[in-house]
């Protein structure tokens, strides 16, 4: 193929090829959720969405994800501060360990939590006599979410810390600020973008978590059933419409979060 008179044939061809490849892989599955879910009419869709168990599942997902996000953002901020400001023996090992949950299959993560906190687990055994049971509760879901999304906020915040000029903090110190004032007025504002995107990523990932939650939650409808578990359960029961309604909500939700991440990038990094 030639490049003839300013018209590059490769350009439209490669763009077309890209879209064609993505069609069966991404576009069509996404579209089918919406087509299938609304096929029987919007009122059916609405009714399925308003079922008490469905609402509970959505609420539980949002609540558990929220707390996991709060914890992981604060922890990620702290870990990024320590690991980027101080150099010590074992620092790299810590960085690898923090990032490890990315690579661990979520089912393994859930299983590991069961082994530790379950009724016969290493630590769970100690709680049992006091009538405490962590597994198969909302707490267990939060714990699983924390584990699975552990490295996300840290991974976004740490590079920003690394590239932040030390002279900003030094300038603040010579001007007379305490460490806390420096952190609050100088360091934190520069991290705003990283914190927001880290939080959104963590939250989006936690809302969709399935593999670990199904093991630790017990999957009790109306008690410990999160939205993804609800989809799975309803599908198994053959209630496709019920599953589909929640699927649409979750898909729209992730779409929203990624739009914010993508389009608000300039705002988040504004100088």
């Amino acid at each position, binding site marked *: 193929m030639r490049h003839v008179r300013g018209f590059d044939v490769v350009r439209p061809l490669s763009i077309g090829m890209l879209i064609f490849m993505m069609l069966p892989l991404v576009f069509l599955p996404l579209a089918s959720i919406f087509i299938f879910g609304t096929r029987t009419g919007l009122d059916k869709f609405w009714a399925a969405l308003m079922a008490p168990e469905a609402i509970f599942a959505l609420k539980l997902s949002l609540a558990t994800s929220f707390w996991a996000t709060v914890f992981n953002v604060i922890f990620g901020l702290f870990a990024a501060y320590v690991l980027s400001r101080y150099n010590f023996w074992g620092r790299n090992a810590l960085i690898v360990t923090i990032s490890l949950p990315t690579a661990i299959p979520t089912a393994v993560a859930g299983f590991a939590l069961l082994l530790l906190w379950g009724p016969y687990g290493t630590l769970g055994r100690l709680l049992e006599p006091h009538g405490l049971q962590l597994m198969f509760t909302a707490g267990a879901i939060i714990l699983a979410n924390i584990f699975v999304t552990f490295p996300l906020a840290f991974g976004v915040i740490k590079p920003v810390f690394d590239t932040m000029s030390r*002279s*900003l903090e*030094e*300038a603040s110190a*010579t*001007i007379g600020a305490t460490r806390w004032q420096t952190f609050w007025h*100088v360091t934190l*504002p*520069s991290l*705003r973008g990283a914190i927001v995107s880290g939080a959104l990523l963590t939250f989006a990932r936690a809302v969709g978590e399935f593999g670990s939650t199904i093991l630790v939650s017990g999957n009790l409808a109306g008690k410990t059933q999160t939205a993804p578990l609800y989809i799975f359960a309803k599908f198994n029961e053959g209630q496709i419409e019920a599953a589909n309604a929640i699927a649409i909500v979750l898909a729209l939700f992730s779409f929203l979060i990624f739009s914010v991440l993508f389009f608000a990038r300039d705002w988040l990094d504004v100088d």
Partner: protein
Amino acid sequence: MAKAKGTLIQKAQESQSIADPPPAAASVVGLSKHFGKTSVLEKISFDVAEGEVLVLLGASGSGKTTILRIIAGLEMPLKGKVILHGKDVTDLPARERGVGVIFQSYALFPKMTVEKNIGYGLRIRKRRRKEIRETVNELLALVQLEEHRKKYPSQLSGGQQQRVAIARTLAYKPEVLLFDEPFGALDTQTRSHLRREIRALLKKVKVPSIFITHDQEEALELGDRVAVLNEGHIEQIGTPFEIYNHPATEYVATFLGAANILEATVKEDVLEVGPAQIQASLDTAKFRPGDCVKIVFRPEDVVLSPGDLLRPGLTRISSALVEEIIFVGAYERIRLRLDLGGEECRRDESPYLLTTETPERQTTKAIIATRPKPEASATRLQAGDRVLVAITSFTVLEPQRDTDVTQK
């Protein structure tokens, strides 16, 4: 006045051990610092008087930044003290010292507007809003950035950012201002412009300042006094006039612009450079007959005469051959070879010492002269001409007596 200041400082250096230091806005006493096993500072001492600008001039790696960071409290010295207005602050953290640091990278807070940046020092000191607003307005006027008050640092030019940085430190009335190569990131034009502005500003606010730079022109222009640093120690400290015209060491002579260096032997009342003799009245306490010394003179001190005649008041050196003439705009630069034969500085010392000298300097008697345009066009020269070389002024460096070797 400059002279008086110079002698005062010398005295201060000599009397380090005396309990009462002379009143100074800022002084460092016997600073030493090591990074690992390498020593970066050795017994650095100097004073800065009230309202004075002291420039620490040195190549990269000379330790000048480390001195600044130690004064600011961003680095701890191994030994020595930092005294600000009579108070020993060596053990105080940076935030309690009340110094203002102007960084090369400006270090403005990117998420704060110009006025927030300037008011930062007062905000964290919990001053009243009205007071903060008034101070910020005053400083914005002082650095002429009133119309930029709502802008963010990234919307300003380098020179403007640096002015914000200065205003930001002036806001909390620092005891001393420390400038860490503040013009390093600017282009040449902005540099010289801002330099003049800052010089005027410092004269106005009268805050004692320490300025570090590797640019000799900047040092001469900005400093009331200049301290030349080399590998962690001070080579010389004095007024720009003193250090340029009367360098104490060869390093100072060559670091501050071009310098010609000739070796000479001290005789009763003359200096002997090969077969030529130079009239010089030397301090007999410092120079002894037979000493091998170095004569330093600047290219602009050289006077060339095509004939045998010399103006009175000049010091004759010898005849020379014009090797090359280079036109460099404002003046012409001439390379000359002096007719001094191969004779070297005569020494009575051991051959071991002789070998420490670089061999080129022993045999090469090439010097550089510069002539301003009027002189160049009045007496035209070309390569191959023979001229008579004289100098208007020169400095004789004290012989480096390695007492350990020569006395034993």
